[in-house]
């Protein structure tokens, strides 16, 4: 049963490719018919499964069979060139060998080898037929002619292998020289006519300096790092205000009507005061927050663990600030407004009165309206800082600041 199925699948591929050649299909068809007859014979005994026979075909037998198939494949490969010669019986030998091996095939693995051998031989014959029908000469014959015409004798010393031949390429090239096979061109000087030969640069020796005394840079006065940060200053201001007023509403303490940014900074400073324990935030019955000053705890208390940190979250965003500014009556803000050194570039650089509470770094900004604007002093107009806040960029940065509080 298996045999018939396999042969049928093989046949269309085999005969399909042979439409050009005349002799080939007949040979293959005859082979195929033989096999079908045998399969038919095999078909007669369906009820007598020969299990003993199959079991007997052991692994070693199958290996031998496969190796025979392999050697057959190699033989097909090697005899590619002489397969179609009229006086060569190689083809019939190979086909007979395939047939013999096929009789011994029982298992699928060998079936594959069998099918491959048939495929190989079919391909070989087909390619040689193709070339024959085109020109009547196979490439192998042509090469033979070339070698005999232009060969130069053996180079190799081994006598076992086929003699190494090298062609006399120059003579061959001369014999077949034709204008179409040679690529021509002007092998003249390629380049502009006035190129001058570049003189080699004389290698200049670096002057060797003897190692002398080392350089001793000035020590930078490091007292600047000890200056108080802005936050510290704000904390100090806030604490003094608290000290004066004693009990204040949180909104009044923190809000800066003109700047959302500064409101957040105030809240930041307040949070540090709360962390240090110097301010107390309470909520009264009506829900309003109050801030009260107090002394920070002693170091001993902190060390002993009686005093510990607690966290709470104060959320403040832009809308809250707007609400806050509505709630707090005008003039009730307690923290002073801090003038900053940043000037927006869209405003003309009109110098107004400036208050500096921090050391300003000179800022060179390119003004879009005029040329290079050098600002070495704080230049602020009242309106500019307010403009700073409503733009969305300001929001982002403030929001980032806010997160530090939690």
């Amino acid at each position, binding site marked *: 049963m298996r045999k018939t199925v396999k042969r049928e699948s093989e046949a269309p591929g085999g005969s399909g490719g042979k439409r050009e050649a005349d002799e080939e299909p007949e040979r293959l068809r005859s082979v195929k018919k033989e096999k079908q007859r045998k399969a038919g014979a095999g078909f007669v005994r369906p009820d007598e499964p020969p299990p003993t026979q199959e079991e007997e075909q052991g692994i070693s037998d199958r290996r031998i069979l496969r190796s025979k198939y392999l050697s057959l494949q190699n033989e097909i490969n090697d005899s590619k060139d002489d397969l179609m010669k009229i006086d060569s019986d190689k083809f019939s030998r190979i086909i007979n060998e395939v047939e013999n091996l096929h009789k011994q095939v029982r298992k699928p693995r060998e079936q594959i080898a069998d099918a491959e051998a048939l495929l190989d031989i079919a391909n070989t014959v087909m*390619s040689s037929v*193709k*070339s024959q029908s*085109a*020109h009547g*000469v*196979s*490439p*192998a*014959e*042509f*090469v*033979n*002619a*070339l*070698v*005999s*015409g232009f060969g130069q004798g053996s*180079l190799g010393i081994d006598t076992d292998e086929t003699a*190494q*031949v*090298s*062609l006399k*390429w*120059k*003579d*061959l*090239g*001369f*014999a*077949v*020289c*034709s*204008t*179409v*096979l*040679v*690529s*021509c*061109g*002007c*092998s003249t000087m*390629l380049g502009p006519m006035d190129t001058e030969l570049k003189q080699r640069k004389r290698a200049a020796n670096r002057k060797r300096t003897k190692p002398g005394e080392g350089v001793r840079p000035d020590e930078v006065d490091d007292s600047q790092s000890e200056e108080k940060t802005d936050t510290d200053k704000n904390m100090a201001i806030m604490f003094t205000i608290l000290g004066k007023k004693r009990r204040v509403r949180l909104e009044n303490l923190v809000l800066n009507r003109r700047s959302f940014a500064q409101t957040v900074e105030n809240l930041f400073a307040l949070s540090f005061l709360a962390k240090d324990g110097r301010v107390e935030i309470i909520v009264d019955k009506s829900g309003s927050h109050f801030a009260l000053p107090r002394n920070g705890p002693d170091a001993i208390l902190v060390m002993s663990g009686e005093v510990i940190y607690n966290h709470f979250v104060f959320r403040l965003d832009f809308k809250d600030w707007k609400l806050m500014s509505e709630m707090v009556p005008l003039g009730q803000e307690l923290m002073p407004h801090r003038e900053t050194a940043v000037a927006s570039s869209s405003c003309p650089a009109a110098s107004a009165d400036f208050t500096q509470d921090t050391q300003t770094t000179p800022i060179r900004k390119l003004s879009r309206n005029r040329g290079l604007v050098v600002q070495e002093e704080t230049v602020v107009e009242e309106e500019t800082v307010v403009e700073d806040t409503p733009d969305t960029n300001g929001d982002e940065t403030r929001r980032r600041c806010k997160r530090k509080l939690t």
Partner: protein
Amino acid sequence: MADEEDPLSQFDISKEETDKLVSEVIRFILFKFHQSSGTPIKREDLTQIVTKNYRQRNLATHVINEAKKKLSNVFGYDLKELQRARASSNGQSSRLPLSQSSVDSKSYVLVSELPLEVFRKHVVDETTSPMTGFTFVVLAIVQLAGGKIPEETLWHHLKRMGLHESDEHNPVFGNNKQTLETLVQQRYLQKEKVSGPEGNTLFYDLAERALDPQVSEKVKDYISQILKNDVAVVELDD
């Protein structure tokens, strides 16, 4: 003469400008062809020389035609046009619209117009003959194999003539593989990957330069000559 008036009337540029363009194109062709050892020159490169400074349509074609005439008159070279017809069996090339493929893929080679004896006597020199021989042999093999040959088979034949695929120090050709690559670059051969049941095999088939009737006829002539010689030698031995 009608030719001289044409540039002015057609393209609105003076004769001197056309001459200048033509000479630039000729110069480019001559040096590029030699420099690239026979690789065909793309039409795009030539038209670029013209369209860099001028916008008129068809000016490029006119300039190239003029250049062709001049090359033939002055240098004895025939500027052959090759059409890169990539008609692969998979039919993949059919994806390109016809107009686009015809415009983009023209290339030019220079072929000497000298009669054969003169060519042989004065132009051919020893350093290039081996390459000629190699070109001929490979083309002949591929042609005899039906126009298409798998890579292994080609090297199998070359091995019989003393050229091994892995040999990088051949006294005549240097790197054998590279020499074959040169043929591909010169558009005598083209590579084609075919995925078969056993995996991918590389096929060499004749490219546009070799499919030109001039070339294929010559190759056939030489093949028959060699076979005749061989037969004659055999007969003499007998």
